């Protein structure tokens, strides 16, 4: 039986992880779990630590372990620390050797994707057998590649056997935000449901809700959700990025926000993209000049 299914004992920790409630994952009491579930639970906890930036602890904790899952977690931690080459080496090795392991698929897939090897990541992940996490990752990679059609196909396929699981709902909502129209509203409902219920609410789901609302053109509501998220976690990078977007749409001055943001998360794609575009602008603008300079 799938330990993450509705009746499984890992359901809650698994949901916490994917709802972005990393603290709850780390605090999850694993002592009562049956032996075969202890390792998956530990992996989730380690990944939660990585997500919270505690990579050093994770590397220390898996150092010298030889279970392939833990090695993969270690590699992920290395990746997040910045040692992309090292992580990639481990991931490629594991992808070759232990491609049938669900956890390896997800962890190595994440590393491969992060390193820009999307095709390899997809090839690895497509070997999954009923692993919803792999499905969510595949959907994300497809979306990253702007292959909405493939992403939707993946979601549809997953819905046929895992209707209504959290990850399928999330993946469907990610894809829905690319489709638009009514799907915006549906995505909004999914995120709102997570964000507003006290037991599932997290910064991540609040930010997602706000994003859906931005797309729906409901700026005031989006603002409220962002503020709610900021009170929970004032330095959440996506939250700050979307807050800037929201303020730009509302026609407000954001230069202060951007400078504050670049001090907290200088590597955020938003900022990198902005710099790139700014340089691009100057380059493009240089091609033009008036006939007579004043």
């Amino acid at each position: 039986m799938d330990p993450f299914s509705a009746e499984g004992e890992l359901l809650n920790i698994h949901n916490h992880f994917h709802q972005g409630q990393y603290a709850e994952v780390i605090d999850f009491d694993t002592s009562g779990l049956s032996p075969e579930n202890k390792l998956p639970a530990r992996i989730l906890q380690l990944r939660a630590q990585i997500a919270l930036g505690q990579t050093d602890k994770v590397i220390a904790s898996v150092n010298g372990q030889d279970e392939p899952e833990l090695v993969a977690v270690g590699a992920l931690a290395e990746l997040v620390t910045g040692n992309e080459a090292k992580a990639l080496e481990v991931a490629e090795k594991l992808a070759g050797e232990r491609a049938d392991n669900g956890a390896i698929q997800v962890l190595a897939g994440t590393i491969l994707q992060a390193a820009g090897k999307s095709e390899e990541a997809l090839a690895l992940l497509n070997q999954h057998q009923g692993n919803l996490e792999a499905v969510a990752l595949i959907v994300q990679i497809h979306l990253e590649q702007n292959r909405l059609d493939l992403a939707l196909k993946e979601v549809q396929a997953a819905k046929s056997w895992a209707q209504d699981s959290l990850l399928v709902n999330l993946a469907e909502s990610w894809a829905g935000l690319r489709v638009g129209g009514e799907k915006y509203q549906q995505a909004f409902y999914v995120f709102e449901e997570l964000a507003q219920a006290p037991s599932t609410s997290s910064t991540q789901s609040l930010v997602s809700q706000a994003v859906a609302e931005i797309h729906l053109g409901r700026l005031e509501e989006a603002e409220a959700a962002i503020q709610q998220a900021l009170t929970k976690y004032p330095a959440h990078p996506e939250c700050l990025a979307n807050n800037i977007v929201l303020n730009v749409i509302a026609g407000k001055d954001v230069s202060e926000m951007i400078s504050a943001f670049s001090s907290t998360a200088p590597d955020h794609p938003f900022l990198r993209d902005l710099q790139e575009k700014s340089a691009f602008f100057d380059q493009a603008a240089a091609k033009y000049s008036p006939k007579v300079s004043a």
Partner: protein
Amino acid sequence: MASTSSPNMLTKFESKSSRAKGIAFHPKRPWILVSLHSSTIQLWDYRMGTLIDRFEEHDGPVRGVDFHKTQPLFVSGGDDYKIKVWSYQTRRCLFTLNGHLDYLRTVFFHHELPWIISSSDDQTIRIWNWQNRSLICTMTGHNHYTMCAQFHPKEDLVVSASLDQSVRVWDISGLRKKHSAPTSMTFEDQMSRGNQNQADVFGNTDAVVKFVLEGHDRGVNWVAFHPTLPLIVSAGDDRLVKLWRMSDTKAWEVDTCRGHFQNASGCLFHPHQDLILSCGEDKTIRVWDLNKRTSVQSFKRENDRFWVIAAHPEINLFAAGHDNGVMVFKLERERPASAFYQNNLFFITKKDKHVRSYDFQKNVESPVLLTLKNLGSPWVPPRSLSYNPAERAILVTSPADGGSYELIYLPRDGSGSMGTTDTKRGLGNSAVFVARNRFAVFNVAAQQIDIKDLSNSTTKTIKPPTGTTDIYFGGTGNLLLITPTAVHLYDIQQKKSTAELAVNGVKYVVWSNDGLYVALLSKHNVTIATKTLEQVSTLHETIRIKSATWDDAGVLLYSTLNHIKYTLLNGDNGIVRTLDQTVYLVRVKARSVYCLDRNAKPQILNIDPTEYRFKLALVKRNYEEMLQIIKNSSLVGQSIISYLQKKGYPEIALQFVQDPTTRFELAIECGNLEVAVEMAKQLDKPKLWSRLTTEALAHGNHQIVEMTYQKLKQFDKLSFLYLATGDQAKLSRMAKIAEHRGDFTARFQNALYLGDVADKIQMFKEIDLYPLAYITAKSNGLTEECESILEVTGLTEEQITLPDIVSPLSPPKPIVQTFQANWPTKATSQSFFEKALLGQVEGLSLEDEPAAASNGFGFDEAVEGDGVKGSGNLIEDDEEDAAGWDMGDDIVPEVESDFVNVDSAEAGAGSSEADLWARNSPIAADHVAGGSFETAMQLLNRQLGAVNFAPLKPRFLEIYQATRTFIPASASLPPLTNYVRRTVDETDPRKILPIIPRDIESLATGDLQKGYDAMRANKLEDGARIFKGILHALLVNAVSVASEVDEAKKLITSACEYSLAMAIELSRRNLGTPEEVAASPEKLKRSLELSAYFTIPKLEVSHRQLALASAMRAAFMNKNYNSALGFANRMLANGGNAKILENARKTKAQCERNPNDTHEIEFDQFADFEICAASHTPIYSGSQFEVCAFDGSRYQPKYKGTVCTVCEVCEVGKNGSGLKLVA
């Protein structure tokens, strides 16, 4: 249809008494008259359940009773053969009608004429006029007891039932004619009437038998007309209820309702529905379908035989009399099933079971969305409705068949589709949506909750706490489980109860709009709890609570049977308004309460929310709002004052009160001595003064204390006060006063306080207390005085035995001159609120402040007053509006060709949505949003000749930033980018377009106004920047409809004119200081020219006046009287602010004396010209010029090829295809 016996009858009221034989509902008030076998007539308030009155004058059983429709009267008929007419106001029997010779069975008033009809065991039916108290007709024909006789509600007919087994219908039109016009009865009339109607045996034509209905096999006990149809229903000892129909000429039996197994004693038609109700000695009340004559419902009572049944004429209420009293009941629940979401109310209509919606914003009711005819049994209305906005589905529950639910999707477009195509159903007592794709179904009997998905399959089963009676939505993922003694908050995911609140008998649950609070309604209590079920407050009502809804501000409004009331979270409550009829509140918005009445008709009631808003503001200490309320509404009243006082806000209450006594009390309470003194002076009562004294003393405010002592003439206290404060001067004056008054005690006291020995001795001497005087003198060593005393008394020193003399006491001298000032009293605390009321807080004034009137143009009069203008409306159409813009929006094809440059990669990655935008649109802004800056620049270059892009960089990046959001997806991977669209509803990838921030509307309402403000405030640098920003925002923008393009062009023209004007004025100011300018003739000339040119751009009139006034002043000061005259004339022609015009008139008058210019400048006020935006020199009409293709600013030919100074982007003189804003 099978007969269903409903175990729980909706009994509203029950009384205990001896056998009830007659019942009558009051048509308006919640009253019921019950006549008893014991000779008493009772008047009950069935709503409150109280006995209002008893009328006991009949001798023996009273069987018939009826209320008058309009007058405060009722009639009764008893076994004492008497008909009595009573006034329930004076509680007396007004008179008695005698004539019947046996028991009275029924008595009824006529619906409009002053008649009473009575039926009696003497076999007659009689009609009486109760105004002149006479018998006007006796109807004979029955040959056994007449058990019942009633008027037809509209026509001149009477129906009667008798133990002779017949029912008779009588025509009484003759009687009406005779009595409505007794004098005009001509012989012909009588003849014709005689011919027309068959006179009875006695030649009586007043009332003639029209039909005799035979069909009952035993005596008939009751008979009644249908209120609208030509139908009659009768009930008899043959245990049958018969339905009869009549036409003008005949009447016949339609059908029989069989079911009673004992004598049927009463029957009637349902006033509004196609139902018959009957009751009998078999202890049942039965409900029959009028059209099918089948049994719909029956209610059985254990021990009591039913004798009579009556219906309320208006509302859905019935009453039945039985062996042990009377019961008032309903056939069905009247609460319409409804649910609301955002601005829509969904509800089910009463009669047809249609699902409709009502839009609060537009105040319109939708057409029928669905019909639920097939749901449950036709006579059982649905119980509840739950709405799922995500799926646009509803869940309806019905109590029929032991409880069932149906899940139905509403039609998408709102109307049309009537059939319930896709429904899922099942058994259960309550069903509510708990999440987007889940609902919970509760089964009472099985004590089980099933969580189902939308395909109606159970995903989870929950065992609720024992005794659960109902479930409600409990916030996302939660349920509220109701048990008779508590409410549980149940987390569906964790499958456990997370909170519990002990509240008895909760019936309904109402969530606040923000989902933070929940109101639990039980029959007589409202309990407010947080979303985690912590009790916030609770209140009790003596009368039933019907419904509740939350105000957006967090005030709960609830309805009882006859009031709408409010309660704040802290439990403060009060009445908002009274209700004529019961309503179910749905929503509150501003001054409107939306509700459904019992017929499920949406209604809007107006309320005055002032009181609760005020209290809410008070609780939240939102003084600004309070102030607003006080200023805008008449919120003065004893109740609000005592409320404030009670709540500990005497200082606020003080602001409302006029009455000096109350003001005094409040002032004392809040320690505001100033007001207290003022009021005490007004009232001047000793009691108030002494209270003030105590208070002032406590404050240490001895100056007020002094004053009050003076007022009260409390000299001793006053003296002591002076002593305490060290005021020697006043103390000695007190001594004088005491002397005047001849009050020796006081005088002595003062002397003591002062240490004034001489005065003491003097006083002792005056009152002949020489020994004391002597010893005082002695002890103070005043030997002379001693001697003189001895002399007076004729004694010598030796004759006196003196006690040991100690050194005399003298009062201590004050060290601090306390009396000079009060003790450092705490400044009377003035709340923010009071200050605001006194107008001390700046920026809180309620009047709109006149716009900041700075006058940098160097004259006082000009600026003020025009602040009011120019809010909101754009510049009026100029005749030359957008002259430079006619070059057309038509040269598109060349643009189309060059944006197919995006390569479509076949393999892994596809093209992003951003790429699509550039493909989908010929608008530069959309290319910018797509990140394709290069093509965007190309477009702008071709359309407008844009060459200098640097100033547009912020705008480019702004648009680019606005179009990408970041959603956190899988952990440890970068977020997913999504693309924000302005075409929110579009999913076709060929039509989607990006959002463009700062659209035309926001520019016109926001930035433009800011620009105007800068102009008014003379902040020209700011203004120039703002208008430049508007131009840049417009340069890269998009609109959705063509009509907005014109608006955009107007905006561009306007921004251009202002930019130019400000640039001119700024360049004048940059010439140098006034001294420098005055010193150099060249600069002076240029300065005068520029100030003249400043008046040329087409500004708003009020702003042009500023420019003109400035120019006029400059010209006048420099003795260019002719120019000044010209400006003055233009100002006068423009009209507007009176002060400016006055100034212009004065200048004009002065200039006309000497209309000459001292300095020659290049400005011909009569010529038609424009200003070159680069050189700020005139371009006369007819001469050559170049324009900027974007903003239309004009240039001298020599500037061709330079960058436009106004927009700073486009090349002057370079033509393009024109600005493109719409796809």
